[in-house]
Every structure is written in C-alpha cells, then in structure tokens.
C-alpha cells in the first residue's frame, strides 16, 4: 500500500522543535519538551491517542497557541509569522467556516486574507470534487464535504507544508479511504505533509516517517518500515494494571533465559490499550 518515496534532502528540516512545552497549569502538561524534526518532502505521521498533545503541538506550530517554553521553527521562521503562514496550508481538527456563506465564498474570504489570487478557488474546489456544491451554504454540507472544503482551503496557497490534524475524523469508511488516497496524492508532489492521527493503520498507509506521542512526549520515531519491521509482542489487556503485571512477568522470563531484551517500550493507557515488548523471538507477534 505505502509507496516508496525519496526524501529530497535529509538535512533540510521543515519543522524543528526543541524542548517545546505547553503547560496549562502545574498539573496539566499538554506537551512536554517535544523534540520533533520533519524533513522536506516527507509525509510525517504524528501518531498518538486522544489527549496525547497532538493538536496542541500543531496549534503551537501554527502560532495559535504560545509555548510555555522551548522553541520551534517552521519553514525556517517562528510559528505564526506571516512569512511562514503564507507557505503553510492547515486543517486543524474540525474544519471551521462561516456557516452562512457558501463554500466558494468561504474560500474567497480566505483567499483575500491570504493574499492569493481568487483564480485559485475553482481549481481547489475541483481538486476536492466540491465544485457542484460550492454555491451552497457551508451549514448544509455533510461532514465529509466539510473536510474536503477544509482541504481545499489548505491548498489555496499551494503550500510547501500541509498540516492536517486528523483529517479523517468522523468520516465513514468510504470517506476515510477516499481522503487517505487524496492525502497520499498530495504527498507525492514536492510538498511536505504533517498528518496527525490516532490510527496506526492510517499513518501506515500514508506516511513515510512516524513520530509517536504519548502524554505530551515523543516516545518513538522512525520510518513506517522501521516501526513495522521491529519485532514486537503486542499485548492487549484491561485494566492497565493487568497489562503491567503481564509485562513484568515477561521481563522476568526473558531475564531468566539470559535474553537481550531491553525493556518494555511503552504502556499506552488509552484505547486501544496496548503494551509492546520487544521480543527476542522473531515473528512472535
């Protein structure tokens, strides 16, 4: 399913964060010292369960939310600066537009704000196959149509970087498949795509590299092939304490057999509940 791609220049970073953090209070840490690097031309999947800090990170990269500490560079400039935003197309969570305006008028408003020619509106609508309903009010659109208008809006600027936050959220299976194919096509061009998702299957299909975030921290990063090829044992157990008990027992078994197994890589407490244990037994999945 996943295409073979060549990343143009490994050293050419489009997004670079250093210890990026967002705290809403002493107890609530949305993002904790995030180190993230997205290279030019790649489709980067930002994977994590709901509430892991994906959207907050993307909002910080777009200048919507100020980091509590740390730094970020997007396309070489500070997040939210007009020079950067002119080259970024974004869809954050649910697409939000003026409900009383048609899809076409909504794009007209955005094109004027973005300073791009309004001649780009019709091609963008055509690209997401929304031309036939472009004259109808946004409030009459189905969720799938709203998502497609959101993508059209993100494409208006012909951006170097696309930031898409769970673009298939709430869509039916057919719509999801259609949207994923569309994003794959977008990524085949020269642009960079940063896609957040809580679905492993989705990033597997679309992305070249994946960063896994949990509780605001980047807990793993690598190519899809690396993540796929890593030998691992997947456990699903409820409650979490049960998973921890099984993992502890496995660790004990491996140690007693003199195995080189390092450690439990992660326990992810939200759904789907999983524990991964690197295994010394190939194919023990």
């Amino acid at each position, binding site marked *: 399913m996943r295409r073979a791609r060549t990343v143009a220049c490994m050293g050419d970073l489009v997004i670079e964060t250093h210890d990026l953090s967002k705290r809403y209070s002493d107890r609530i840490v949305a993002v904790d010292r995030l180190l993230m690097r997205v290279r030019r031309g790649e489709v980067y999947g930002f994977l994590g369960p709901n509430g892991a800090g994906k959207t907050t990170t993307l909002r910080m990269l*777009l200048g919507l939310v100020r980091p509590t500490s740390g730094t970020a560079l997007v396309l070489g400039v500070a997040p939210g600066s007009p020079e950067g935003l002119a080259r970024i197309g974004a869809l954050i969570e649910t697409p*939000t537009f003026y409900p*009383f*305006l048609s899809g076409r008028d909504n794009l*007209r408003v*955005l094109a004027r*704000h973005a*300073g791009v020619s309004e001649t780009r509106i019709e091609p963008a609508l055509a690209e997401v196959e929304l031309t036939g309903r472009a004259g109808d009010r946004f409030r009459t659109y189905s969720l799938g149509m709203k998502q497609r208008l959101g993508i059209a809006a993100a494409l208006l600027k012909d951006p170097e970087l696309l930031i898409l936050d769970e673009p298939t959220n709430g869509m039916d299976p057919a719509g999801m498949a259609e949207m994923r194919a569309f994003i794959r096509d977008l990524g085949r061009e020269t642009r960079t795509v940063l896609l957040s998702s809580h679905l492993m299957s989705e990033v597997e299909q679309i992305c070249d590299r994946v960063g896994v975030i949990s509780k605001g921290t980047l807990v793993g990063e690598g190519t899809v092939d690396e993540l796929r090829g890593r030998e691992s044992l997947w456990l699903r157990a409820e409650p979490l304490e049960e998973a921890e008990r099984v993992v502890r027992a496995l660790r004990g078994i491996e140690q007693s057999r003199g195995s080189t197994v390092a450690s439990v890589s992660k326990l992810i407490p939200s759904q789907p509940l999983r524990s991964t244990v690197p295994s010394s037994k190939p194919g023990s999945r």
Partner: protein
Amino acid sequence: MTRSVAAEFLVVRKRSSTWILLGIWTLLALIFAYVVPYVTYLNGSSREPLGDLLPRHLVGNLMGGFPFFGGVFALQLGVLAFGSEYGWGTLKTLLTQRPGRLRIFGAKLLALAATLVPFVLVVFALGALASYAIAVREGMEVAWPSAWLVLRGLGAGWLILAVWAAFGVLLAVLSRGTSLAVGIGILYSLVIEGLLSALASQVSVIDRLVEFFLRANAYSLVTGLGVSADDVASNGPGSFSGPFVGGAQAVLVLASYLAVLLVASGWLLRRRDVV
C-alpha cells in the same frame, strides 16, 4: 490590508444579522421618533410635539435614540463581529492564513466601522422622509436644518455607536463568545449605568463618577445638537437626568473610550491562545 478588509466586508455583507439589526434599529428609531409622537399629536392630547417632528428639528429629534437604544444595537454588532468567530471556530481558520493577528483585527474593525455608517445614514434618511411627510400633511413649512448641523449629527451618531460597538468587541474578545458578552453588555448599560445615573443626583460621589459614563457623555453630546434635556429624562430605560458635561469634553471622553477599548481588545487578541 485592503484585501483583508474586502474579505471582512464580504462576511459582513452576507451575514443576515447585520441587516436584521439595521432593520430593527431603523424601525424602532422611526417609531419612537416620529410615529408614536405623531399619533399622540393626532389624538389631540397635545399640540406640542408637532414642532419637533418637522424637518427643521430633524437632528434633535433623531439623536435622542442614539446614546442608549442605538448603543445597544451597536454593542450587539461589535459582539457578533468578534464573538461569533470564537463560536464558529473561524478565528483559527483566519489566523492560519497569511496576515498577522493585528492585521486581521484591524480589517475586522474597519469593516465594523463602515457597517455603522448605514446605521446612522439610513435612520437620518428615513427620518427626513418621515418629517417631510408630516410637514406636507400638516401644511407646515418644510425648512431643513443646516448642513453643518446634519454633519455634526451624523458624526456624533457614528461616534456614539462606534464606542458601544468597541465595548462589544472587548466583551466578545474577553469572553471568547457572544452570549455572555451580550448579556454583560446589556446588564452594564441598563443596570450599572442606568441605576447609578438615577442615583447620581442624590449621592455626590456617584455624580462625579457618572460624568465619565458612556451614557452621560453620549447624552451630553446630543443635547448640544438640539435634543432637549426633558426628552432625555423621559427616555424609558435609556433615561438620563444628568449630570451633563460640555460637548468638547464629551467628544474627548468618548474618543478616549474608543481608543482604550480597541487597544485592550487588540492586546488581548494578540496575546491569548486560540484554542
């Protein structure tokens, strides 16, 4: 910036609430400035009001509605212009386009300021038509106020509405929505300013405070344009019995309100997270 303003004009022009508010405000202004007084006159209870209904008193007859009733409509316009962006989530969509936050803020303000122009012009135009019709029907002389007085009236009307709209903008940005902002705005105009103004003549400390109220300065401005203090004192929920201040002071205080409210709104919009 020009294209951002054009974008905001498109939003304002296609938004039905703009036209609904304009329609209701115009209707109420005409009813209370011309229809009710003329019906009262025709019923013979008093021959006094007719003079105020003639074209010569156009400015004085219309301006009495701006400080409170017009203000409440402008407040709602200001709240809707910014509060709805939070409610619909469109602010984040706008802020991820090219312009910076302050440029979008400026574009929205310019569109809002321009929207207030028909709120003054339409009321004046229809008021002129109503006064002309009454004069012709009653066989009275049709004499118009000076162009200078009309211009001052238009300017004062716009300034009063602009201050109230700016107050609405600040409330919307503070509360990041519309409902609370409209509620607090109306509560402030009716309860805080209304009740304290009513107490002003009895408590000297409040008297000094009231001089800086929107209501006091707006009414002071319009009384200088021909609105009678008696009419203001019997203006229902928008009534005001003083203290009045000089016209220049009123303009200065209102302009200061406008500047402070807009600077505070812009600062908040620039500083706060958009979630």
